[in-house]
């Protein structure tokens, strides 16, 4: 563990941007956990008298059409957005890692089926496929998670497959097999844990895309139900107000959304540098 920490320190000192990303990430995490407590106003409370007010000391990000405090809404939305992203990434990981590892390890038909499935998904423009899935399964948050997981699945499956394929005949796997473990046990107990680091990197790299995807879906009206705050839908709501001069309604959620994705992308890079310097590009 110690050398890894030393390595991490080296990477951070070499790359201050990654340090910045870690700081940002901590901020987002705090917002996600304590957002509802920290929010200065009730994010759902309308107030006709305060509708469409520009940013001020009382309302840092201004107010929306119904007089709700945008800062509070942006803050509270963090939890929903991050939850969607985390959940979909974890789901994609579970689907992708398991099937990918199985494909790489067993080869043959398993490999062919998983490969075909991944190819089929990859043959769609991913965002359009996600739209179709949400529309087909129903207009709910959980379906955004599922859709995002499905379109990310091939990425995980491919990486897991390649890694498992390499390790199939590695010494430690052979040893585990010889000591009387069944194939499934070898797979889950020995191959899977070994590809975890690279899967972790993959997860941090796809987080940003997952957030963007969810926001894109709710931008076109799918998924999140009003009055829940979510960055994408807030941008969509604000879009109608930009031309009339109320730029803050769309700008702040949009900028926060961008910052979050930016943070996760940098973080993914940084994590990759720490875990596997060879992959650095």
């Amino acid at each position, binding site marked *: 563990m110690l050398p890894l920490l030393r390595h991490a320190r*080296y990477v951070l000192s070499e790359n201050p941007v990654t340090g910045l990303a870690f700081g940002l990430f901590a901020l987002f995490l705090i917002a996600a956990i304590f957002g509802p407590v920290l929010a200065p106003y009730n994010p759902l409370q309308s107030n006709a008298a305060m509708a469409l007010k520009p940013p001020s000391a009382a309302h840092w990000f201004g107010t929306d059409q119904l007089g709700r405090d945008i800062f509070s809404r942006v803050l509270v939305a963090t939890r929903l957005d991050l939850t969607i992203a985390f959940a979909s990434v974890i789901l994609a990981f579970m689907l992708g890692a398991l099937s990918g590892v199985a494909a790489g390890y067993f080869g043959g038909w398993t490999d062919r089926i998983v490969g075909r499935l991944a190819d089929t998904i990859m043959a769609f423009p991913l965002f359009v496929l996600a739209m179709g899935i949400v529309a087909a399964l129903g207009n709910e948050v959980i379906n955004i998670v599922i859709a995002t997981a499905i379109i990310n699945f091939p990425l995980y499956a491919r990486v897991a497959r390649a890694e498992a394929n390499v390790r199939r005949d590695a010494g430690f796997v052979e040893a585990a097999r010889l000591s009387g473990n069944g194939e499934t046990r070898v797979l889950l107990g020995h191959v899977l844990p070994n590809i975890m680091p690279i899967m972790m990197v993959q997860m941090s790299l796809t987080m940003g895309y997952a957030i963007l995807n969810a926001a894109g879906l709710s931008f076109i009206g799918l998924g999140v139900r009003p009055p829940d705050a979510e960055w994408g839908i807030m941008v969509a709501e604000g879009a109608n107000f930009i031309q009339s001069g109320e730029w803050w309604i769309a700008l702040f959620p949009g900028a926060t959304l961008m910052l979050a994705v930016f943070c996760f992308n940098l973080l993914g890079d940084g994590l990759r540098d720490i875990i596997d310097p060879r992959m650095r590009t």
Partner: protein
Amino acid sequence: MTAVPALQVEDLSVEFRTRSGVVKVLEHVGFSVDKGETVALVGESGSGKSVTAFAVMGILDAAGKVTSGRALFGGTDLLALGERDLAEQRGRELSMIFQNPRTALNPIRRVGRQIADVLVRHGGATRNDAPQAAIEMLKRVRIPDPERRAEAYPFELSGGMCQRIMIAIALACRPALLIADEPTTGLDVTTQAVIMDLIGELAGDSGMATIFITHDLALAAEYCDRIVVMHAGHIVEAAPGRALFAHPRHPYSAKLLAATPGETVALEDLVSIPGGLPDLRRSDLPACRYSDRCERRLDQCVQPLPQRTVGERHVVACWNPL
């Protein structure tokens, strides 16, 4: 033999900055090569042979840094030259060929053009007659059917053929110094001999100085006038080949020789030298980097190493030579 040095390296030290600390790869390395002479740099992998060559050529990785020393070549210090001036020298005055000839050639450029590139660059030919000049070079390195081979890509050629191309590239502008970095690694034995003979012959034709980097003492003995033995970034002994074989003075050289039973066995196969190379990142490296492995170690071995001249052009860096 008139001893006019073609290249004189003095007090060369090189450091590498890596993720896990600074590595002192070379320390106070000094040797010389005379015109028309062939000198071998011999040592285990990681002893600093190639780094020495790269430092002289000015093609170290970005992480490598020359911290001291001079490399006098025809009156100029190569280490002090700017990149632009050095690039003028490289390929024209001093050339290098590498191990693994197949990867050392641009995989997606026809070999004839790769030779022509060098010729055009150094004014050896105009753009128009470069292709023909390249074919002439192919003839010189005895490639059959050179017109057709010039149009080939490296992957279409055998390893030996690729090394001939490399030699053609290196010698295209008739340089004064050739550095051959393990040119026969990865080639089969008969090809090895052919390539070595070719280098020797072409060098002899033009009075070119040659530095031959190898870990194969037998090969060095066969083709080289003098042998320089390196260990962990130090030169431990330098002597004419015959003298070294007859009477190695450094304990490491002796071990090396003892471990060379036949002509074809490489050093990597030998386990008889106890211990390994020291960790060059250590801050408390002993003055003699061999001392940890040495059976003849004395208390004074911690003091800076002496350079003892023990014979005609025979120098050893040891407090307790054989």
